[in-house]
């Protein structure tokens, strides 16, 4: 088991600095996620670790061993790809055995370990199937089994769930998290989906334009974003001038929709704001609505579903907010 150290990693494509001097330490056995919008450099960084992308500067170490100049096939990693990358010319068992055979594992051991790995991803008995006979979720399980079975030092996930439908995504991410924890392998996970990132990660590195924007545990980043970008990318938020809330200072503040409530539901001590309902969405367990304030700005509000209360667009409304949940942005 290994921790990962990335020091000063940089890579440009033409004039674009895809990864721009990243320093990062991932702990042994940690589930670490690179999160960010497309083009932020998260995939490039992952591919640097995997060995598919050369570094212009900096270095990467697994434990004490520097690996960034090793050929990719000698780095001892397990990688799971967005489009599964299951070899169509091999059976499920053939796919899972592929890395073992590359490592010259004895045939008897191969068979046993393949069966174990397939059982681990709930595909026991699927060994003789061909990839074209499997569903997307099953294919991704094969890919995961294939990456796990070689007991790599590091597991890399490159948006592994983005090709699956919404429900499957939610259950698979739980499984991945569980497997990783039970095996204790250090994992780096790339995604652009903040909910997914928050659900699986020990820590998240939020990336933008090739740089790390903020690194921390999911709740920490959510609750204490250090930048406007962090605040906006991690969930939904209201970015407003401090003065609009009647506060001191000239900067922007972030106020999460769930920190706002209707006047009637809020504790007495919370400050009040007046406005009118602009738009309502009943999403099931929660209801989202936008409120236009006197100065014309919009506030997004999220409350739990309340069947007896009807909010009609145009109706005047009074809001209250939790002053403790205001984050002042630099």
């Amino acid at each position: 088991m290994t921790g990962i150290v990335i020091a000063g990693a940089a890579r440009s494509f033409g004039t674009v600095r895809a990864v721009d001097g990243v320093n990062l330490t991932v702990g042994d056995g940690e589930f670490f996620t690179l999160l960010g919008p497309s083009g932020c450099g998260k995939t490039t960084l992952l591919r640097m670790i995997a060995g598919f992308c050369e570094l212009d500067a900096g270095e990467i170490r697994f434990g004490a061993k520097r690996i960034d100049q090793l050929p990719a096939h000698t780095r001892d990693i397990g990688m799971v790809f967005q489009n599964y990358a299951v070899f169509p010319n091999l059976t499920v068992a053939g796919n899972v055995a592929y890395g073992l055979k590359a490592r010259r594992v004895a045939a008897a051991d191969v068979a046993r370990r393949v069966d174990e790995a397939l059982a681990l991803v709930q595909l026991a008995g699927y060994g003789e199937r061909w990839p074209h006979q499997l569903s997307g979720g099953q294919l991704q399980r094969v890919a995961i089994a294939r990456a796990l079975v070689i007991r790599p030092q590091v597991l890399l996930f490159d948006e592994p769930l983005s090709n699956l439908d919404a429900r499957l995504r939610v259950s698979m991410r739980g499984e991945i998290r569980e497997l990783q924890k039970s095996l204790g392998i250090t994992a780096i996970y790339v995604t652009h989906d903040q909910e997914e990132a928050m659900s699986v990660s020990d820590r998240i590195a939020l990336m933008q334009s090739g740089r790390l924007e903020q690194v921390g545990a999911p709740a920490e980043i959510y609750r204490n974003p250090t930048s406007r970008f962090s605040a906006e990318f991690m969930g939904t938020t209201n970015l407003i001038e401090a003065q609009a809330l009647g506060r001191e200072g000239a900067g922007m503040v972030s106020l999460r929709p769930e920190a706002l409530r209707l006047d009637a539901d809020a504790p007495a001590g919370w400050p009040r704001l007046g406005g009118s309902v602009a738009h309502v969405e009943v999403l099931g367990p929660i209801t989202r609505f936008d409120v236009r304030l006197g100065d014309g700005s919009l506030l997004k509000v999220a409350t739990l579903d309340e069947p007896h209360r009807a909010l009609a667009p145009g109706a005047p409304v009074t809001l209250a907010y939790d002053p403790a949940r205001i984050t002042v942005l630099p």
Partner: protein
Amino acid sequence: MRLAIPHQQRLPLAIAALGFLFLGLFLLYPLFNVFSASVLDGEGEKFTFANYVKILGRPFYRGAVVNTLAIGVAATFTTILISVPFAFALARLPVPGKAAIIALAAMPLVLPSFVSAYAIVLLLGRAGIVTQWLQSWGIGFGSIYGAGGIILVYTLTLYPYVLLPTMAAFKAVDVSVEEAAQSLGSSPRRTLWTVTLPIVIPAILAGGLLVFIETLENFGVPFVLAEDMPIFAVEAFKLFVGETAPNPSSAGVLGVLLIAMTSLVLLIQRRFLSSRRFATGARSAPPILRVGLGLRLLATTYCWAVVLLALVPFFAIVVLSFMEFRGPVLHPNFSLANFTALFERSTRPLLNTLMFATLAALGVTLVGVPIAYVVTRMRSAMASLLDVIATLPFAVAGTVLAIGFVVSFNSGWLILTGGPFIMVLVYTVRKVPFAVRSSSAILHQIDPSLEEASISLGRSPLQTFGRILVPLMLGGILSGFVLTWVTIASELSATVVLYSGQWRTLTVVMFQALEGGGGGIATAAASTLIIVTLLPIAMLYRLVRRYELST
């Protein structure tokens, strides 16, 4: 400073280096020698353009250029004219026996075109069998000799080059595009003209280009049918191996001009295609259109008529090979004597043909597939350069490349003339562009993450190439192999310059037999070639079918 060569680029770089070495030695160097022969004076010392001035100053050779280009354009045009409706019918209309039509359509490629021309003369010449029969009914028609006959033979033998890609393109058209047009109020007919046809134009042009280049470099058909119309490839051949006055500098001039013409056409086509690439992501083939009985009958008749007409010379040769020839003279009696005579002489030409075609097709695969890998997986100026050089043989006529080989490898440190490998090498170089094209097409469809998955699991890039890419490409590689094999087995224009002694091929036997008046031997050799080349094609179809069923 980091490592000079990033490790993930070492394999492509190594392949590229080998590719440059191979093509440099066996393509650029011979071509350079052809070119330098054309710009040197009589003593081979001083640089001069006098040879060009001399050749182009002669109305005879200017006429040859005009004739060749005019025939090429006309044949390309007629080929497209008959192939596009044919392709549309096969892709979109209910025509019975489609599989059979497609299989039959590929058959003319098996027969060397000069043999087709010979058959056409026997059938439609001034004293041809069909001509005389028609005359007995009082029907006469113009001479088969000259431009008309050449265009006819080209059209009948080369139309699959346009038909097959165009049919594939019609099948790949996303039907929702058509539906969109119709929902906007366009009639089906207008939709065909304004939406569907423009989408398949690149495929039509790509096929048309192949036809055009074939006509420029073809030597057998005008040799038989041109009568006294000067044609470029024939004149180049005569200047080089002419009995009376071999003239390498003039032959070099013609060779360079031929390359210039074909390169120009190739560039124009690239230019045109790069500005209009219509990718349509069709998930499934568009449905067969519902049409009235009249149109259905018309389409069926048309398809079958074209495919059978194109096979007439083919069948004529097979029938003739079983008829009695007394010396060169044909008598209408059944006989197996042609075959006995053919094989009594020697089975070597047959074995040579099989061996050369197999070796060269292997060579083409071994050279073309790795180059395609570099070209598709590496994005660098070097990869583009390799692509351009590997496409160059497209533009080089067989005669010209063969001449370059003889000039280059007749003496010095590498002597190849007189042996079998010179032919294998020339065939390999000539067919490399086809392998690169077809392999690139397959590689574009293989997700690079499969390779990365394999590498991350511990296989080196080279092992990954062998264990993942090659198996995935195998179907395509195999069908490319067979097609290359077939076209090499019927090659004449380079062979006739290069063969020597015991290394005669079946096509050379045909050519020589027709020379010496041995029509019987020639047709027997042609029939033999047909049989041995149809076998691998049949095998291929079975393999591909089984392959498609298993995946």
